[in-house]
């Protein structure tokens, strides 16, 4: 399928139009859910770090540091990818799958259009493009969640939290996670697209393909997370 997807488009203008549409529908529409989840998780992590570091031997700045590193290294890349696999992935499978069972894909083929490329390539490019931005947004709002929750609940002061998130900062962690987010973006778009494109039957099969797509996307994300962490971080 991938060889068909990356073939030269019939008309670049139409592909670009489709690309902007996908960036909007798959990416921009996901920003709010990323913000909401990140703010809450950032806040929850801050409270949990404070709880596990209750011993006065630990400096309070560790709370900010722990929240920051967890967000940067794992949560904002991997967890957001897993959540997006559910949101974007099921959307892609059901959209393409419905187009398959209602003969819309056959219709494109008969017009002489490379349907795999026209339908899938803009989605892959859009998701790979938007994922690093979602990652950055998630880190920012996660830290903000901690900044609000920590002082409000009294577990850490603003000064300690801010000092913590600035302490021992390695920019490579961000680079590492941005690389991960590119891989995850590709997986989140391509695996569900594959399941949708090759679905056969009716509405029931589209639903079951959607489930399979999300499950397998999640497994692949975790597998690649392990591989990339081993390759890039140790």
């Amino acid at each position: 399928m991938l060889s068909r997807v990356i073939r030269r488009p019939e008309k670049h203008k139409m592909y670009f139009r489709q690309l902007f549409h996908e960036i909007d529908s798959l990416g921009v529409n996901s920003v709010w859910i990323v913000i909401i989840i990140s703010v809450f998780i950032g806040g929850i992590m801050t409270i949990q770090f404070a709880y596990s570091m209750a011993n006065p031997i630990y400096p309070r700045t560790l709370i900010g540091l722990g929240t920051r590193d967890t967000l940067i290294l794992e949560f904002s890349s991997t967890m957001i990818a897993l959540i997006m696999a559910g949101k974007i992935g099921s959307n892609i499978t059901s959209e393409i799958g419905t187009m398959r069972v209602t003969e819309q894909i056959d219709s494109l083929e008969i017009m002489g259009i490379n349907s795999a490329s026209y339908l899938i390539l803009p989605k892959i490019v859009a998701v790979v493009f938007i994922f690093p931005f979602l990652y950055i947004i998630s880190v920012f709002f996660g830290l903000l969640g901690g900044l609000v929750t920590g002082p409000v609940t009294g577990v850490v002061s603003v000064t300690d939290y801010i000092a913590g998130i600035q302490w021992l900062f390695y920019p490579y962690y961000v680079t590492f996670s941005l690389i991960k987010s590119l891989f995850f973006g590709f997986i989140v778009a391509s695996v569900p697209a594959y399941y949708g494109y090759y679905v056969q039957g009716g509405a029931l099969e589209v639903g079951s393909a959607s489930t399979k797509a999300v499950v397998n996307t999640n497994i692949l994300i975790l597998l690649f997370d392990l591989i990339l962490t081993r390759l890039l971080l140790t």
Partner: protein
Amino acid sequence: MIEIKNIYKSFDDVAVLKNVSSQFSPGLTNLIIGRSGSGKTVMLKCILGLHEVDKGEIWYDDRNLVKMHNKERKKIRREIGMVFQGGALFDSLSVAANVRFPLDMFTAMSVKEKQKRVEFCLDHVNIEPSAFRLFPSEISGGMKKRVAIARAIALNPKYLFCDEPNSGLDPETATVIDKLIQDLTKEFQMTTIINTHDMNSVIEIGESVLFISKGEVGWQGTNKEILHSGNEKLNDFIFANKLYAQMREEGEAAGFGRKQG
């Protein structure tokens, strides 16, 4: 004209088409009929190049589809219009955008020219301008078929294929769709092939009828001859509906149409 010569097609050693030959002339509504599972859909897909034939030739005028490479096939597909059973309109596009889609994809027309062409096509299938902005989910089944026909003729095709164009429609709307396809075929002198098992369509617009039985040509003729063919398999197919048996007995075959019934 489209001509198929001695085509064979099988799936996993099950022969679906066996030595099928026929000609489909321009300006006529050519119908392929047969029972479910007789091989007519496979045949249509073979003619369209969606299935590769095992043996035989498929000629679009003087071009043999079987020997063509992908690039040449793409070219020929731009001369083809197709109306699918369910319409196959793109859900995310409005009625007008659906018809404009092939124009956007394959022509260098200006926005104004495209708009004019879209209006022309939709007007030809009797779609009111007020419906141009509606989405497929907001229109009726009959309207969907008409929009699908408008999209199919947008690029002024030489060849028009229709897969059961009036399935799921009420008899009156089905008649309108049949008549529409026949009128457009005459007006644009297209080679039109319709895959159907609707006997009303056969009687009404079957200027050339090819009956497929168990993957072979069972009978070939016109709607004027079909009720008196003397072909046993064809008779079993047609007269499964008692109305046609009664018609034959009453000798009313000639000129019979749904409206008269």
